[in-house]
């Protein structure tokens, strides 16, 4: 039975390879393969990969340990949802998921309307070359259907830290973001080949780039939220190489979506937009595969294999060489010289583009420097988080300023003083609030105060802008996404700064009956219990949180002992309040009678997630409005 499945799935993969070869051949305007058409082939590509993916899911669900992948990553006693998510909790499975999304974007684009046939053919052909490369890699170098000769009775199991509902959806969401940029890349290459990178190109690209960006944002946020409650360190962002790997494409993509907007409105910055599209996709590849390759030494690295990293590096290298040669060859033909006013919205966006690239460089250097010293000098080192915060914070101030001012400027030359006079009440309000905040909380650090001031300015101006436009029905539709996302970013920055300044931590060694104090709260250690679950045993402690003698909430931090594979994890217990989170986590070190409890007050966490959510929703609104418009045409 297993052997049949092996043959069927590999046959399906080969079918997809063949379809992709024919699809790619259409990049040259040939007469040989006019049939089957683009859409038919796209169907074949999608269905073959979808079936392969379903087969793999099936194998995990029935726990067929004749397959290596299932044996190494699953266990018969695991809850159903983790058998399911175990499919992409490993290298081969996540590769297949990546390919499925690649094919899906290819398919959706092939079906979209209002695009010239030749342009569509080229885009799909470029996309199919990538599909071919990745499917070939899957079949020959990391086949998910490799069989073993032993009759294993049970599997090894999925790393318990990955057994979390959030981590079941985090990889797919993140991947939709990463892979979405593959289509944007294909569109950029098609634009270079047809030499048509213009306003129409921008309006074709827009919905795709916005939705990919929104998914990437959501993916990063989910990962960060998971790290916050699961890793038990009370932090949400550690400037860890893996986190940076997902942040880098996000920064490039943020620059890209704004360039696509300028291109659509003013027909300028063609080359720069193309460069950003190539850069974003390359960084997405780096993001996915550095994580999987095991090159990065990180808290998040679970499934890794150094050998495969080489293929990916080669692939990224080829993509860069190919696309930049094409760019060098054609860029003069796509560039149209038209000017923008010096003090205009376009200039503001351009400045922020440069600031984003600077931040990207900072993150890139910090992430790659340890890799380079390790490979070249055989010297291990890490870059402390302080490097990022101290270098990036001053740039964020400028960035927030231009985010605030640019949308208020016109596309042509605008008088700056007129805008400032227009905004005077807003500036005074923000200044007053900042002053109150800094006096009340004794916050006298210049950088932090400035970030709070400009964030407030951005939040208030974005919110009033969306209200002002409400009377004129049309404007509110185009600007709602932008204003929501911009206000969200301001809220996020304010929350990040205040959280960093006001977090508090207490560590206690506690026995049952102890009363522990954190600010005005008393925690009484009520009892400790042993709980047996299907896939782990756990020690559960009960802490009653009281304020002025009144019971407010019960905290139940846990320590879980998993047996397949043997691992211990600490589960935090968090009370989310609007203005601050209270966070408890415990540890039981060996040779010790009492348990260690760490308590955090984490201010503004809810607001931080709220800001992030606003950014995501803003992106989705911008993407969907554009899709709606495209269909109207």
């Amino acid at each position: 039975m297993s052997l049949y499945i092996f043959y069927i799935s590999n046959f399906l993969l080969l079918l997809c390879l063949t379809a992709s070869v024919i699809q790619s051949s259409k990049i040259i305007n040939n007469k040989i393969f006019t049939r089957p058409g683009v859409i038919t082939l796209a169907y074949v590509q999608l269905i073959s990969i979808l079936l392969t993916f379903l087969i793999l899911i099936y194998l995990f669900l029935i726990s067929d340990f004749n397959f290596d992948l299932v044996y190494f990553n699953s266990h018969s006693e695991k809850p159903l949802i983790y058998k399911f998510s175990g499919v992409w909790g490993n290298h081969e499975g996540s590769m297949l998921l990546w390919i499925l999304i690649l094919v899906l974007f290819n398919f959706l684009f092939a079906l979209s309307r209002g695009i010239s046939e030749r342009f569509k053919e080229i885009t799909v052909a470029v996309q199919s070359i990538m599909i071919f490369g990745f499917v070939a890699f899957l079949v020959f170098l990391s086949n998910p259907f490799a069989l073993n000769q032993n009759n294993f009775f049970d599997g090894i199991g999925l790393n318990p830290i990955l057994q979390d509902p959030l981590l079941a959806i985090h990889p797919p969401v993140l991947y939709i973001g990463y892979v979405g940029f593959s289509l944007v890349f294909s569109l950029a290459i098609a634009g270079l080949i047809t030499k048509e990178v213009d306003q129409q190109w921008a309006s074709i690209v827009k919905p795709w780039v916005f939705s990919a960006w929104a998914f990437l944002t959501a993916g990063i946020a989910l990962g960060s939220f998971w790290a916050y409650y699961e890793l038990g360190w009370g932090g949400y962002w550690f400037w860890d190489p893996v986190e940076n790997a997902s942040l880098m494409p996000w920064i490039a993509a943020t620059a890209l979506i704004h360039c696509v907007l300028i291109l659509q409105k003013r027909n300028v910055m063609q080359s720069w937009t193309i460069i950003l599209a190539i850069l974003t996709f390359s960084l997405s590849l780096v993001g996915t595969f550095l994580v999987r390759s095991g090159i990065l030494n990180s808290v998040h690295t679970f499934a890794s294999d150094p050998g495969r990293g080489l293929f990916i590096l080669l692939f990224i290298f080829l993509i860069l060489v190919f696309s930049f040669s094409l760019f060098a060859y054609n860029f003069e033909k796509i560039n149209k010289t038209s000017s923008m006013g010096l003090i205009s919205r376009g200039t503001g966006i351009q400045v922020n583009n440069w600031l984003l690239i600077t931040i990207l460089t900072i993150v890139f250097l910090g992430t790659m420097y340890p890799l380079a010293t390790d490979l070249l000098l055989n010297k291990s080192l890490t870059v402390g988080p302080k490097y990022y915060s101290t270098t990036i914070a001053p740039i964020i101030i400028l960035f927030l300023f231009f985010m605030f001012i640019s949308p208020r400027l016109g596309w042509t030359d605008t008088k700056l003083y007129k805008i400032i006079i227009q905004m005077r009440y807003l500036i005074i309000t923000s200044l007053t609030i900042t002053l109150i905040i800094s006096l009340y909380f004794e916050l006298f650090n210049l950088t932090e105060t400035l970030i709070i001031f400009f964030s407030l300015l951005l939040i208030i101006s974005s919110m009033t802008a969306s209200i002002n436009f409400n009377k004129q029905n049309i404007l509110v539709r185009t600007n709602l996404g932008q204003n929501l996302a911009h206000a969200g970013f301001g809220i996020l920055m304010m929350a990040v700064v205040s959280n960093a300044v006001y977090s508090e931590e207490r560590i206690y060694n506690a026995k049952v009956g102890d009363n522990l104090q954190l600010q005005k709260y008393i925690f009484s250690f009520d009892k400790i219990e042993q709980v047996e679950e299907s896939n782990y045993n756990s020690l559960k402690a009960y802490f009653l949180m009281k304020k002025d003698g009144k019971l407010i909430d019960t905290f139940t931090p846990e320590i879980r002992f998993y047996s397949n594979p043997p691992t211990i994890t600490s589960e935090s217990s968090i009370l989310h309040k609007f203005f601050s989170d209270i966070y408890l986590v415990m540890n039981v070190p060996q040779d010790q009678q009492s348990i260690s409890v760490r308590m955090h007050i984490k201010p503004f966490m809810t607001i931080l997630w709220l800001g992030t959510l606003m950014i995501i929703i803003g992106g989705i609104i911008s993407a969907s409005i554009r899709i709606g418009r495209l269909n109207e045409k």
Partner: protein
Amino acid sequence: MTNLVKSRLIKFLLSLIIVSIAVLIIIFNLRDNIIYFYGPTELLKNSDKQGQIIRLGGLVSVSSVQNESDSIFYFSITDGDNKIDVKYEGILPNLFAEDKGVVVEGVYMNDGRFIANKVLAKHDENYMPPEVIETLKKSGKWQGE
């Protein structure tokens, strides 16, 4: 030189200067925040690292763990050849145990003791930090593949 060439040259030089200043600032900031990793033997050779924040990794020596009060611990980290005494105040991770791999972050003091402010948490019982494996290989004590 025509005016156009001149103005382009000025623009180019100006942006070159700005970019180099930015890169210099970034690199200096990077250098200030680098945390080096050492094994015990390596650290003893690099006595000039005293007073800097560094990471130290190896195995927790057998029967070296003692606690002074609720949350102050003493243990030593060894690579088989040399060991360094560590003082740590805080919570030890669940998987901290004697004869297991560990990485600590802190300051190497003048008296040869290491004051740790972080014991890096690891997730998996069989997991060995790659740096520790490297360290053990250097001292010839590595027994894995």
